[in-house]
């Protein structure tokens, strides 16, 4: 399942909703991305812009790709948009499998992919003003390894 939403999410509730449907889940791999304040508390806010419909479409595609490549019972991506603050949750990736390797690997695959292929753009507001976050070389490399 994929969800693109303004609202925060409760990871316990989200995994319970999926786990209750299937008692054959042995492991859940999760990643939660959060707004980081920075070492000198420089960040005031982060606004996530996205390309509606394309976002949902691309997330749906990659979520299906994970299910093809790994043996998953289910998987979930929640990505927030709008204005967020230090400490806020941005993204949740959760993969459910019988054996842990499938969950752990596909979870890493999904978050690596999201970093460079999901149509989101981050505007950071700090003391220095507003700056659009640039693509990181390390993120490109991480996405290309899959």
């Amino acid at each position, binding site marked *: 399942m994929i969800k693109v939403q303004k609202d925060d999410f409760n990871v316990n509730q989200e995994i319970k909703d999926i786990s209750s449907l299937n008692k054959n889940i042995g492991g859940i791999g999760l990643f939660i991305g959060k707004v980081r304040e920075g070492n000198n508390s420089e960040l005031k806010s982060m606004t996530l812009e996205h390309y509606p419909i394309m976002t949902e479409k691309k997330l749906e595609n990659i979520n299906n790709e994970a299910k093809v490549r790994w043996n998953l019972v289910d998987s979930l991506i929640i990505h927030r948009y709008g204005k967020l603050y230090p400490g806020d949750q941005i993204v949740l990736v959760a993969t459910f499998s019988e054996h842990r390797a499938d969950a752990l690997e596909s979870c890493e695959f999904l*978050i690596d992919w999201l970093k460079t292929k999901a149509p*989101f753009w981050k505007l950071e507001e700090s003391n220095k003003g507003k700056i*659009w976050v640039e693509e990181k070389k390390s993120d490109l490399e991480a996405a290309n390894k899959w």
Partner: protein
Amino acid sequence: MHIKYFSWVKDQIGIESENLIINKKIDSVIDLITYLKNKNEKYNKAFEDLSVIRCAVNMEVVNLDNKINDNDEIAFFPPMTGG
């Protein structure tokens, strides 16, 4: 042709989207960029460095030499930073 702009491309051009009716022959994304750059200095500036411009045609990311049609939705944006 429906065109959308995101992130700093949108900020520089100053609009989120526009519908263009183009009388000239526009075959590819790069033709469209050339056309837009001639409109005014804002567009010219936004498309100055094409190495940081990405394009989606009907919500699929494509190369700048990709063919386009009148009824396509074209989006321009910098590299994506999700997650």
